[in-house]
């Protein structure tokens, strides 16, 4: 019996090489054509990057006005509650692909986030909160990379109706959403700490073991400040990751070219924009949700341990 060759098909390798050379040719050729047609422009002062993240109220209800961030929050809430309930009502013995994905998510939430950082009795109590936190942030991050028609500043005129143009925006790119989630986690872990140790005992538990005497005057304020730093760092980590990701995608897909007036620069940055988009969508969105939930679990379990 002749063994079929274990070496990969050499035709496939040269096909990939040819494809890459063609793509590189299109990239460089397009740049040269754009330089020849449009030349070098001048700096554009009308394009402001902050306008991409501006929130315009569509329904005016005072503080509760509905703008695109609120719509995104509604969508992610419906997704969080809806997908989990829908899958739970349709479980099979032999899971299909969607159920397998949801089971992977569930095991990530239960084993890595909750049970990996809390002991078992606490984990059973706090698992619904951790799961909801992770899923809410995850859905918010993911749908931020889906272009939806939300840019009501620049509308497209179709048969007289002003349709908002497509835009990329994530609710977590606004500082209020991560701030509120971080405040919730902050209140919870302080409350757990106070209810386990009592108020004086909780403050005493902040001091590391074996510290006596005058150096307490230095250590204690630092510990208080570092507890508040947890709130700040949770907020800024999530907010800045998502905001910087969106901003850099906006710059790479033409923002830089518009700002500097160089049309060939827009063509040049397109491959980087695609790579960054895949990187952000595939890694950063999930990772930031996982980190937020993991740190929340670590803080809550840390506040409840008895030294």
């Amino acid at each position, binding site marked *: 019996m002749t063994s079929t060759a274990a070496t990969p098909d050499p035709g496939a390798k040269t096909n990939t090489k040819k494809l890459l050379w063609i793509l590189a040719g299109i990239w460089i050729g397009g740049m040269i054509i754009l330089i020849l047609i449009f030349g070098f422009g001048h700096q554009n002062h009308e394009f402001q990057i902050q306008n991409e993240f501006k929130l315009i109220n569509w329904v005016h209800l005072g503080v509760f006005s509905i703008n695109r961030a609120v719509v995104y929050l509604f969508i992610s809430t419906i997704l969080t509650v809806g997908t989990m309930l829908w899958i739970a009502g349709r479980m099979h013995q032999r899971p299909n692909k969607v159920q397998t994905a949801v089971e992977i998510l569930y095991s990530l939430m239960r084993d*890595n986030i909750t049970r*990996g950082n809390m002991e078992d009795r606490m984990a059973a109590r706090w698992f619904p909160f951790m799961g909801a936190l992770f899923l809410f942030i995850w859905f918010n991050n993911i749908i931020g990379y889906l272009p939806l028609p939300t840019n009501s500043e620049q509308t497209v005129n179709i048969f007289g109706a002003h349709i908002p143009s497509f835009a990329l925006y994530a609710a977590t790119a606004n500082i209020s959403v991560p701030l509120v989630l971080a405040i919730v986690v902050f209140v919870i872990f302080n409350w757990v700490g106070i209810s386990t140790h009592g108020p004086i005992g909780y403050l005493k538990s902040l001091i590391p073991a074996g510290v006596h005497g005058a150096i307490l005057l230095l250590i204690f304020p630092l510990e208080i400040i570092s507890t508040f730093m947890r709130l700040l760092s949770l907020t*800024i980590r999530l907010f800045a990751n998502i905001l*910087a990701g969106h901003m850099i995608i906006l710059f790479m897909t033409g923002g830089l070219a518009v700002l500097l007036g160089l049309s060939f620069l827009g063509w040049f940055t397109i491959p980087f924009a695609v790579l960054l988009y895949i990187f952000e969508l595939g890694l950063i969105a999930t*990772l*930031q949700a*996982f980190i937020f939930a993991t740190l929340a679990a670590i803080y809550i379990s840390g506040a409840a341990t008895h030294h």
Partner: protein
Amino acid sequence: MLLGLTHLLSFGDVSAGLGIGIGGGLGAVGAGVGIGYIFGKVIEAVTRQPEMRDDITSIQWLGFALTEACFFYGLVAGLLSWVLK
């Protein structure tokens, strides 16, 4: 030439663009060193004990995100200097 470069970046006067540049640049230095160190250690650890790969991978992602956050602290500080001028 340096004035020409900062004129290209200015959203007002020189100090705003300079603030973002310094904040982002210095932040990236620290984050780059930290992330490289983490992944280097992960490679070493997986080489020594390949069966621990999954456990080490979850700690690796935790460390990566915490270190990358320091870059974003620097970037936000730079953006604050641009907003506050």
